[in-house]
């Protein structure tokens, strides 16, 4: 008897599971789909959750800035500006800029990993405004930029940096950096959508970011460089960004530089956002 009953229930598998599944399935209402803003914020929340679960991912965002700040100040400071302290006053806005520009590439890594893992398909098959995933990623990235900036500034202040522009100047400089880097993120989204593996993304970003951040006025005044290099430094957008941020932090804000950075950010977004969205929609 017992055997039969058991065999039967084994055949029907788990009736309890069945009943609760039916209940759960039947209980589903059909709410109105999330709007673009709500969907973007939800994806932004996902970025926060990822930081919560994988705090190691903030390692690059926190440790590199600390290392850069300390290394450049103490290794090159004396040679370049007479003393580490004086060099720090010059270099810190540059290190801040370099740090934030550098971590923009994680946008490409994140989207590329999503595609590889299959979760991308799930999101794209949902009936929500498709760009929300990208906008949410931007929100998460903006937060990383702010965290990294805070780390650099904290370390800087701890070893003696004082901003002549005061708190206001510093906040304005960080805001400008975040604005520019968010526009840059659209470019990285294109890389992330186009390149096959996260490793390749890493390779490409290093090739682009190293020259872009080092061959600028981040670490040294361009006047000391050979003429041909100066020509590149002059057209390098990172130079423009550094000078604008440095101006704000040094209480010598240059309205022209700042407006140019804002204009450049708008132009980059206007050109590359549609391309990124198009690629994203057609990604197979």
């Amino acid at each position: 008897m017992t055997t039969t009953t058991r065999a039967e229930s084994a055949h029907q598998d788990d009736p309890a599971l069945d009943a609760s599944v039916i209940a759960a399935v039947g209980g589903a209402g059909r709410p109105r789909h999330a709007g673009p803003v709500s969907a973007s914020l939800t994806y932004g929340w996902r970025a926060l959750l990822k930081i919560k679960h994988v705090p190691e991912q903030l390692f690059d965002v926190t440790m590199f800035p600390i290392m850069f700040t300390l290394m450049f100040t103490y290794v090159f400071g004396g040679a370049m500006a007479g003393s580490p302290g004086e060099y720090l006053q010059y270099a810190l806005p540059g290190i801040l800029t370099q740090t934030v520009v550098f971590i923009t590439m994680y946008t490409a890594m994140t989207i590329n990993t999503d595609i590889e893992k299959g979760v991308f398909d799930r999101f794209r098959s949902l009936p929500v405004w498709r760009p929300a995933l990208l906008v949410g990623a931007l929100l998460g990235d903006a937060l990383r930029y702010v965290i990294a900036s805070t780390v650099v500034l904290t370390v800087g202040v701890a070893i003696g940096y004082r901003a002549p522009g005061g708190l206001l100047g510093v906040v304005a400089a960080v805001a400008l950096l975040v604005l520019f880097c968010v526009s840059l993120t659209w470019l990285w989204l294109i890389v992330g959508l186009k390149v096959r593996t996260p490793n390749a993304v890493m390779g490409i970003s290093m090739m682009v970011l190293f020259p872009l951040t080092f061959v600028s006025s981040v670490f040294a005044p361009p006047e000391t460089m050979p003429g041909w290099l100066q020509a590149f430094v002059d057209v390098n957008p990172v130079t423009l960004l550094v000078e604008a941020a440095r101006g704000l932090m040094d209480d010598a804000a240059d309205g022209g530089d700042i407006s140019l950075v804002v204009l450049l950010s708008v132009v980059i977004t206007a050109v590359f956002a549609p391309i990124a969205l198009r690629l994203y929609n057609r990604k197979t």
Partner: protein
Amino acid sequence: MTRMTPDLAIETHGLVKTFGETRAVDGVDLAVPAGGVYGVLGPNGAGKTTTIRMLATLLPPDGGTAYVLGHDVAHEAAEVRSRVALTGQFASLDEDLSGSENLVLIARLQGYSRAAAKERAAELLEAFGLTAAARKQVKAYSGGMRRRLDIAGSIVVRPDLMFLDEPTTGLDPRSRNQVWEIVRALVRAGTTVLLTTQYLEEADQLADRIAVIDHGRVIAEGTSGELKASVGSGAVKVRVADPADRPALAAMLAEALDAEAVLDSDPASLSFRVADATRVAGALHRAGEHGLRVSEYSLGQPSLDEVFLALTGRPADDGTTREPTAEEVPA
């Protein structure tokens, strides 16, 4: 453009997808009735996944037409998306997040309020036996748990049509049975399920109708009974107690079953492919009366391989085509 036939959940005509030189889907015609489970059976690389991705609007077709729930996938993708759900071959979950967070995320995107999303997530986790693991990262889940969570994610809002791409590949038998139960429950709730599988048994257990596809084409379609009739009932495997009896038993059964004996490399074992399984018991009984002792025998369903052999004249796994994976597909 003509409207699709009523009462069909999916209707495709000459659906084509090419990746470079490969015609992954090469003119697929499907007519999937609303309600019930429709199975798409085929070996790896037959074009099953590519077909599903086109129907779920993730991949634009290169040719032909496809209507899903009355909407053209090429021009009314948004309407299709709001009524279907896809559970891919590889769990489409965020591994860094917990099970609960994954479901809340989907529920929020589907328009649930924060509180309602949490409630819905808890309800689904409970129903799918995942409450204990709700706060664990999906990374730590077993294959069966991932699959259940993935399906739960697809029914946060119950879809009218659900695509399940090889839902049980790689699962242990218990997890597989649970997935089958879930599929049946979904159908009872009114969802049409289209599932792909490599296993004839799975299609047989679940599907009302089955399309067999190979090299991007539908090569047979019908109920599982109809398909099996085209192959015969399956294989009878017999082991003799004494290998010396094998030739005599082979001759006797061959005559009684009207089938050719296949002598396996194991000297005690032999098998037959039979059209009519009802004659097997009697034949074995008579063999016993003649003093030919049979130590064990089994009557198996025809395998996918046998279906393929019967339909195409070659085994399923000759592996001449391979479905390109997502990253190999040129963007």
